[in-house]
């Protein structure tokens, strides 16, 4: 886990939430600033840039591709050749000192060649939020492009 993370993004997706280190976020875009997608079943929206368009995927609470209409923003992660994004219902910026982040190694085989999608968790009282591992999560999003 990266140790010097000062803030996390709480990504609300389909009635559940995940944390993403803010350092992994390249850009956050409002829905109004994105182009709707009609040419891809998996892509919810595109960000048009001078260097091409960046996809933003719609996932359900199991992080499986699923069309959803209730999203309001997309968060983009750096990737090559183009950044990839994820649409979310809500994004909240939380300082690390307001979280209790502990290591978490999901048991079982890793779903990506880069490793597990999660590498930590915020645990306090009854609340538990899984922390996305940026490299593996980016690899997963890129794998959706097929």
């Amino acid at each position: 886990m990266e140790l010097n993370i000062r803030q996390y993004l709480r990504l609300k997706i389909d009635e559940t939430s995940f944390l993403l280190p803010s350092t992994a976020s390249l850009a956050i875009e409002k829905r109004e600033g994105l182009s709707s997608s009609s040419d891809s079943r998996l892509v919810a929206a595109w960000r048009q840039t001078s260097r091409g368009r960046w996809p933003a995927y719609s996932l359900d609470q199991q992080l499986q591709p699923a069309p959803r209409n209730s999203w309001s923003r997309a968060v983009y992660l750096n990737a090559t050749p183009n950044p990839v994004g994820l649409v979310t219902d809500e994004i909240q910026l939380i300082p690390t000192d307001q979280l209790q982040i502990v290591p978490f190694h999901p048991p079982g085989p890793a779903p990506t060649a880069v490793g597990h999608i999660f590498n930590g968790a915020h645990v306090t009282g009854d609340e538990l939020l899984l922390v996305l591992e940026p490299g593996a999560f980016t690899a997963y999003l890129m794998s959706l492009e097929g």
Partner: protein
Amino acid sequence: MAETIAHTMHALVIPTTRVPMLVPSAITAEIMSVPQLKPVPFSENWLLGVIGWRGRAVPVISFENLLGDPSPPVFHHRSKVVIFQPLSGLSEWDFFGILASADPHPYTVDTATDLKAAATPISSPLVAATVTVGRTSVVIPDLDGIRRALYPGR
């Protein structure tokens, strides 16, 4: 005059829906009611979810599903989660839980105890032996096998 040295081991019989387990008490940390399980995306069917326990994130597994039983586990009001100490070679925070169908009960294994091999042993890299406790057939898990199944490559 020959001296008899008694070796005893305090153990727990952990009831599950189909395959009770016999484990040393020393490798368990706590027995608790089933808290809310947070699903872990991309997990195998034997990973029932993760719970917050003593400030840690602890995965809870179904031993039967880990053995290959495809049936989903049965939860009811008597179900418990048995928290296990981190297995040898893992990090100090790698506690894990196993779903029990009811409260485990203590069992003392000593030299005089006749742990007979069960008539129909379960063949699995996760099982060290299948024995009878009273009239019940129970499995003694192979902890190295469980570690390899939970954390391949570690």
